[in-house]
């Protein structure tokens, strides 16, 4: 099982109404309920994974505007961090998109309109992070060698 930790911030209610989400991994629901500052859950991963956090209870009247059309109150929240298997995926959280009725926004952690945050990642997550970072920045040619040393040592220690 893979452990997931989701950290949210700036959670804005409308009266007693709290944002509700559904978290899905590879199209299977792994959490349903209110948004909290921290949500921890576990799920089975595959090599290639699709993580989806769907904002499910937003309706038009949850956005209150004044006479000038400015938003004065809104049901919304932000995703702050994602930690997979105790590893903060850090800036790779931005390699995601937010899909909503009006289209797709790249690297959006703000849950305003009804829609879903979608992130594709691979497990083991450390290997994915090292590989992706090197592919982006071309500055870590030894990542795979070091990852293999790490894995071998880890397996040897935990086999005992």
């Amino acid at each position, binding site marked *: 099982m893979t452990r997931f930790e989701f950290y949210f911030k700036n959670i804005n209610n409308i009266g007693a109404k709290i944002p509700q989400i559904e978290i899905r991994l590879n199209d299977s629901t792994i959490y349903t309920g209110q948004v909290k500052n921290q949500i921890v859950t576990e799920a089975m991963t595959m090599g290639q994974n699709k993580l989806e956090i769907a904002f499910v209870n937003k309706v038009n009247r949850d956005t209150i505007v004044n006479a000038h059309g400015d938003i004065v109150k809104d049901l919304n929240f932000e995703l702050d961090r994602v930690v997979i298997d105790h590893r903060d995926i850090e800036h790779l959280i931005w390699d995601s998109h937010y899909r909503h009725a009006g289209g797709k926004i790249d690297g959006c952690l703000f849950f305003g309109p009804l829609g879903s945050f979608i992130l594709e990642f691979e497990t083991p997550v*450390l290997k994915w992070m090292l590989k992706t970072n090197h592919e982006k920045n071309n500055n870590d040619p030894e990542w795979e060698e*070091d990852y293999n*040393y*790490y894995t071998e*040592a880890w397996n040897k220690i935990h086999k005992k």
Partner: protein
Amino acid sequence: MSLILAKKIAWHILLSQGLGFEECRQAVKSFYSKSRAINDGPVVDHLKKSPSVYNMMMDNSLISKFQNSFTSWIQKNKFNTCSGLELFEPDISQGSTQSFDSFFLRHPDKKHKFFLGEYLYHIVVKKNLGQKWSFILDHTELSKGDALILSVPFCDTGNAPKQLDQILTHCTEQKIPVLLDLSYYTISHGINIDLNFDCIDTVSFSLSKTFPVAYARIGMRYTRKESMDGQKLHSNINYDNRISAGIGLHVIEKFPSDYVVNKYLDLYHKVAAKLDLDASQTMIFADGTNDWSSYGRKELLTAYGLEDDSKFYKNRICLTELLENKQLIEEFLHD
């Protein structure tokens, strides 16, 4: 192949210490470049039973007890000899470092010379103070007006310097004061030093490489009876660091000066052979081929702004971490 094994061992030890991936990755780079004492279990246990700080500070006889005990402790070493130590007077030193600083202070007008590969402290200090110094490759580059600091065993190789007696004869003829840095003496074997040369001004020892007491700064300096400086003044008026002396005395009363070599010599040779390293006379160091160039003191030299000199240094590989993980290392040795 041997370097791959060395990396595997390093990752294993560091991960066992609870470090994460990135921390291990950083630590692997300096894993073999250190020069610290082995954290030997019985020594650590004994150190945990050190006398109270207050009792050490209040013991007026502690410094002289330590100084006298230290001399006989050194002379009882089964693997090495240094004849003529009785010609010198001991005074406690804050590690070997205070002895070096005192030597620099007593010979401010001399040009200080060091064989290439010598302890980096000297070079960093001399560079930063803007004082005269230079590296040498051969003792014939030493002449009147110079002063020499020489580590025995030599810092870069862990072996006795070649032609030590010729160097000391030459320095005596040229009236060149010499400081012999014997910091590795008690973790080495086959070192035979004749101190009966008039050029020898200072002989310094340290416990920092022998026992895990580096942060207590315990050293012993030997100088001629007639020499005088601030360090000796404090010794004469019994105004030295009694806590260092107390910890030093506590440890040397229990463990002989050949304890480390006696205990680790076999394992050291097995490890060096398995990693295709050339064993040295010093228990914690071995010499690596060019494949090991990233694992010697290169990073340290760069950190000190001495990267230009790195090509002249040996790939001195420190095996301390391996020796103190005996059980684990034996598993790797048998794989």
